């Protein structure tokens, strides 16, 4: 075979192999934790009428040691789990239960200490109805927002009460987590994102670095499927 042709062919093959290798590495390193689909739970009466009902149950941990026995890229990062990508049905009522095992500090923006976007603007914290919590006792928030173009608007933001410092064990997770339950109604299909609005990461800029700026820890996708 012509040497030039062979050289060109080899260059193409090596180039494709390098691109494929880099792509595979990036795909494996992106911390995409998979998708958790909401569990159907019959129907529920809401101000918008009787709608299909689905539930989601997630937790917030002070680190990522729970995930694959800590064998993750950043075992020290605070994280939501078991996954950070969620899928819920459109035009339905969704009940989310968030169990918070983490402590907290003061919010830098009290807007996120209020419950927003849920049915009647409330949630329950350990069984007690709340519309807001103290800005000085916020562990995290679960805040859904998204692109404002070509899909229904959706904004849901619920603060998670911090676990008191005295209830945080030296090792493992507290046996007295705070459980927050809230319910909201979805619109039409759309791709949204969620993130924590309590600056619980690290870095020099307002603690919005590290876990806050890495997909798969304190942020993820929230897909409303038709």
């Amino acid at each position: 075979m012509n040497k030039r042709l062979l050289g060109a062919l080899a260059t193409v093959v090596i180039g494709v192999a390098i691109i494929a290798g880099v792509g595979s590495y990036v795909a494996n390193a992106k911390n995409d934790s998979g998708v958790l689909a909401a569990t159907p739970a019959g129907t529920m009466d809401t101000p918008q009428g009787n709608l299909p009902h689905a539930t989601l149950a997630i937790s917030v941990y002070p680190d990522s040691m729970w995930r694959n026995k800590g064998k993750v890229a950043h075992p020290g990062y605070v994280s939501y789990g078991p996954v950070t990508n969620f899928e819920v049905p459109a035009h339905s009522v969704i009940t989310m239960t968030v169990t918070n095992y983490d402590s907290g500090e003061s919010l830098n923006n009290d807007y996120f200490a209020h419950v927003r976007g849920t049915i009647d603007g409330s949630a329950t914290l350990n069984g007690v109805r709340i519309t807001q919590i103290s800005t000085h006792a916020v562990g995290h928030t679960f805040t859904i927002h998204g692109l404002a173009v070509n899909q229904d608007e959706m904004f849901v933001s619920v603060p998670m009460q911090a676990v008191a410092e005295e209830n945080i064990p030296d090792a493992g997770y507290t046996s007295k987590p705070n459980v927050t339950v809230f319910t909201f109604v979805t619109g039409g299909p759309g791709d949204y994102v969620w993130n924590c609005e309590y600056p619980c990461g690290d870095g020099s800029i307002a603690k919005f670095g590290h876990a806050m700026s890495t997909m798969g820890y304190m942020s993820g996708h929230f897909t409303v499927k038709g």
Partner: protein
Amino acid sequence: MTELMEPQTPQWWKKADVKKTFILWIICTAVIGYVGVEFHVRNIVAPASENMSSIISLIRIFTWAAAPVAGLVSAMSITVLTSGRHYGDNPPPEADHEIRNSPKTTAVWIVVSGLLCLFALVGGLVVLQHDNEAILDTKAVQVNVVAQQWVWNFDYPNGARSEDLYLPVNKPVVFHITSKDVKHSFWIVQMGIKMDANPGYTTETAVTPDKIGVFDIRCAELCGLLHAYMQTKVHVVSQADYDAWLTAQAAMEAGA
């Protein structure tokens, strides 16, 4: 004895390549101006404020003002690329235009370019400054804008708060903009205002919405992981609807 007559060279503007360039210049200017205005302006969103209408008009004028410059460059490029190639060490005699090294030509070029730049500067400043006059209007609606990775929230004087912006139509609005973390940029797309949101500082800008409807707010400063999702809506409503919304929202916030 008869003196030898030197062959007369035609004046430079009578030369074939100059005529060709001149005709191409006119054609290129017309095409570039028309296509630039039509395609550019058509792709800009419909304006929802006088400010944005002025910006679109300005873009149209600037495009036409720039078209002759782009047209001349294009025409000269076409002429050069389509002319016959000259082989040899020295330039061909016909290339020896009087225009080369002409102080007059240089002066005209500098003056015209300078005037175009000055026109762009003054025109731009006048248009961009227009709505900022509302900052001094004591009757303007005052809204605090807070940016935070990766959402906006808005505070109104009566205690109302929201993540969507609500504004009354045909009333000047002053925005006091800040950030809780990194640098963002508050951009109301259809109203033609864009202002940086800086942590620790409050910047101000103003606009008078002149169309009822729902418009887009985006962050125009790359601000981190979910920057692309840092979008929300602005609802421009009648004064009566705005008052009703404001009252209800304040009551909800107080009860929350």
